[in-house]
């Protein structure tokens, strides 16, 4: 019974969201607000039951060995709330500073390696080697020249004129446009997929027309 009610609620709000395609209406506004509200509420409930309660409140209440150390992050976390009181709002900067500092310290070296150095390394490929299949050769040439051309387009310290900067930036913009085109194509596919998912739900789980 509860499942049936859930399916009906989901179906009504799915239609509510899609009713925006016709025009803005109260059911759409209600659905939109409920999505945000329920997501936040669910997040708070999960965070409380799985993080705050077992990892902070229970160890302190039961007097677990060394639990007093948890008071430090707990107090730091509570300092965020001082944002709402103008007189002591400056205290909220301490947890932010801690998070930013720790985040940078932990994340920067690994992010640099994962997203910059590895990508640089992957761009440094031989254009041709004996025995290399022709499609790989073409792919490598396109990738290396395309990367260089796109970088030239974003080099603004020199005017985009002449055979190197002029032609390079023109090729660069074509490469960038091809990239945008591929992304747009995938985006269309993604949006249609989301619609298909909802139609499968409406026709299958709700109306039982589809198996």
């Amino acid at each position: 019974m509860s499942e049936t009610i859930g399916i009906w609620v989901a179906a009504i709000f799915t239609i509510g969201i899609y009713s925006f395609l016709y025009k803005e209406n109260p059911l759409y506004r209600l659905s939109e607000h409920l999505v945000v509200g329920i997501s936040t509420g669910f997040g708070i409930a999960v965070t409380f039951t799985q993080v705050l309660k077992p990892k902070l409140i229970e160890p302190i209440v039961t007097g677990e060995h060394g639990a007093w150390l948890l008071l430090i992050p707990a107090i730091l976390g509570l300092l965020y709330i001082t944002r709402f009181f103008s007189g002591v709002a400056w205290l909220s900067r301490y947890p932010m500073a801690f998070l930013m500092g720790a985040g940078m310290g932990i994340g920067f070296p690994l992010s640099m390696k994962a997203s910059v150095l590895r990508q640089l390394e992957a761009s440094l490929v031989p254009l041709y080697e004996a025995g290399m299949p022709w499609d790989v050769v073409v792919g490598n040439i396109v990738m290396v020249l395309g990367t260089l051309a796109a970088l030239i387009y974003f080099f603004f310290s020199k005017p985009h004129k002449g055979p190197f900067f002029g032609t390079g930036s023109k090729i660069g913009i074509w490469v960038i446009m091809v990239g945008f085109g591929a992304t747009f194509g995938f985006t269309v596919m993604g949006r249609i997929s989301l619609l298909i998912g909802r139609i499968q739900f409406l026709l299958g789980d709700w109306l039982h027309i589809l198996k």
Partner: protein
Amino acid sequence: MSIWEKMLDLDRRWIFLLIGIACVVPFFTPLGLPILPSQEVIAIYDYIENLTTDNAIFVGFDFDPGTAAENMPMGVAVLRHAFARHIPVFITAYGPLGQGMAAMALEEITNEDSDDYYVYVNWEDWASIREQGITDRAGIEEAWVAAGNTLAENAHGWVFEGRDIAMLGYLPYFHLVILGMSSSIASQFPTDIGGNSLEEMPMYQDHKSLRDIDLAVTTSGSSACVAWITYGREKIGLPVAFGVTAVMATDYYIYMQSGQIIGQMGGLRGAAEYETLLLRDGYTKSPGKAFVGMDVQNIAHLLIIFLVILGNIAFFAGGFNKKTKLKGRR
């Protein structure tokens, strides 16, 4: 107003209606167009195919309901593959809503009305087998059947909680959780979401940290997947595979090029390709949701291409490329 101008001034709601019809009709008249798995999806499939019961994988449900239509079939397909091969799976979530998504995926796989369901055996239900000291997968199943349990005709197999699956759930600042798990999984998740101790689970005994894990598949609707690369792959060399939404796919192909991921499922198509492989090898009896949706996707794409061509014809034939702005309402 010329015909070209009328075409460009068409109320967009007619286009929405056409797309809607194009996305409904093919469900009732399936074309059965073939789906050819791409190399990046085959790479993930083959990798899991080569794992055994002694290995273990992580599956991250790192998405929320907004992208579930694309990400959910990927997660379900990978879980089905792992369950079929009795590969232990740790399930995590980057966000709180992801935990709910993981629960829904498991619900789908264990739904008795499905052609391809697995019977979920709760942790407490096979306590007597553990008490006998039996922890290997084959031994557990043998003892379970010997205890009088029989598998339904349309069921694929058993999924033993604590041996085949551990639902670890969500923790905040998940990138730090990944770092922590590189030393010990139990240090971050002492229990699963049901409150069962991880250290008592047979699957944990052989895989105590991420260093003992053979693959992390992240089904992601955000940049969460990069955390697995940054803190898993680069820190300890954990093999990672992506299941990302179509919108994200082009951004993450670079990680294939650099060899940082073993493969990638991009959008509904990626999920459908994985389902095709499962169907081919008999791991499922009927096509999954993504597979069924691809016919619809193809028709919708053809319609969109047709409309784009039509719009361009009207634009150029009407000479609007020579004018500063279009007439009419828009």
